[in-house]
């Protein structure tokens, strides 16, 4: 038992600090990917709802492909495509190859995957807004931007939160996949620690515990956000 605590301690030769650093990297990547995905999702939802038929079809292809192909395959393809594009762009500008940090690459790759799911969630949420609200806003002569800010986004948020909460959890768990391509985050650090010390059970259970804490904590936070977003709306409990 003391050996377990020793292995997990925060200062060397304990690996606890390494794991926490990995956790910080994971959360950073997850936050970045979630945010990037939200931006893609917002424009994607707008495109799917109000865009031209070409835009709608292209976005349909995007969301279908991303939601059908395994993330591991997408991560590999996007990583190589992304670095190729950046190197070619850098080459065209006359500079040498650009170094891309693991965190940036992880955010880029996972963000595109998240964007497809976020598009569907936000599209469903916007469609769930009672149409009378947007009609009334337009009858008042509200310009589109003001209507988006005052009516669409606040009303859509309450419907979107459950789906987005799920999406955030998917983001945190998908960061583990980056271990397979060698980006340094919690699962990779755990595997390195386990391989170096041979204490596989200890470290995998510790990592599982950390992920579970993130999940439970996120659940509490999203519960609060949903309660705030639903303020003023009639409750289902009546």
């Amino acid at each position, binding site marked *: 038992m003391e050996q377990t605590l020793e292995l997990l301690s925060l200062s060397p030769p304990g690996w606890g600090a390494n794991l926490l650093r990995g956790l910080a990297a994971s959360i950073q990547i997850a936050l970045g990917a979630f945010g990037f995905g939200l931006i893609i999702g917002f424009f994607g939802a707008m495109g799917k709802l109000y865009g031209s038929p070409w835009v709608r079809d292209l976005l349909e292809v995007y969301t279908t492909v991303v939601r059908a192909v395994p993330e591991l395959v997408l991560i590999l393809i996007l990583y190589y495509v992304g670095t190729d594009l950046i190197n070619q762009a850098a080459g065209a500008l006359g500079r040498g190859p650009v170094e891309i940090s693991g965190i940036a690459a992880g955010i880029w790759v996972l963000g595109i995957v998240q964007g497809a799911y976020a598009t569907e969630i936000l599209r469903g949420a916007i469609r769930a807004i009672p149409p009378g609200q947007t009609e009334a806003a337009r009858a008042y002569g509200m310009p589109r931007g003001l209507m988006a800010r005052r009516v669409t986004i606040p009303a859509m948020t309450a419907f979107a939160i459950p789906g987005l909460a799920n999406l955030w959890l998917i983001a945190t*768990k998908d960061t583990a996949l980056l271990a397979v391509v060698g980006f340094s985050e919690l699962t990779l650090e755990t595997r390195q620690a386990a391989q170096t010390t041979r204490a596989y059970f200890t470290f*995998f259970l510790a990592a599982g515990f950390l992920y579970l804490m993130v*999940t439970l904590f996120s659940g509490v936070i999203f519960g609060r956000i949903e309660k705030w977003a639903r303020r003023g709306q009639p409750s289902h409990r009546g």
Partner: protein
Amino acid sequence: MQMIRAMLIPRRLIMLGLFAAFVVWCAVTLDWSWLPRYAPLALQGLWLTIWLLVVTLVLGFTLAVPLGLAQAIGPWYLAAPARAFCTVIRGTPLLLQIWLLYYGLGSLFPQFPWIRNSDLWPYLRQAWPYAVLSLTLSYAGYEGEVMRGAFASVQKGQIEAARAFGMPRHKIFFRVWLPQAIRGALPTLGGETILQLKATPLVATITIVELYAVAGRVRQDTFIIYEPLLLLAAAYLVIAGVITLGFRWIEGRGPRMSR
């Protein structure tokens, strides 16, 4: 069919034409010399992927039904562990669960030498039992939550009517409650099946040579970067398409749900 008619408008025909041209361009300019050599291995990998998917779907769903039922109507000493199981499975990454089962259990074997002489040893040595176990538990964890909601959403009146007719409890469950719950959950189950398909590549990390591992082998042997990945993505798209069509057909078959 409706879908084919939807495809025949000019805009979609142009897009299909462009896509066909892209496929032809890929077939001609990219490097496909590795295909003949690796085709048998690729077919084996495809079979293994589909086998894993079907087996874990069946086993996982069989486990998910009692999990959902326990949470919906069970006493606290059944509902609480079921809920805890689902929470832990859904709160930790699948990759971690797979590695915990395979390497974590594996590191315990030498401490119990009698395991090597037991009948289970040939199975404990191989990787596929661990893959099946972890994928099954994962699917059961997620579907347990889905089935909980499905059981809770079946109209109470149906159960009451069945009981009023004097049906014994197991008959109510298998004739009324379960079929209605499954029918209500079918759309979600279709999506979850696709998610399970997307989870199968993770078992490549414990030496199972399924489709993703075959593509990895090709990439490592030949150093070709894109072509194996593109073909792999296309293969998964096709499988996902088949699954989606299958579920749509199943949904179309039953009586329309009265809402």
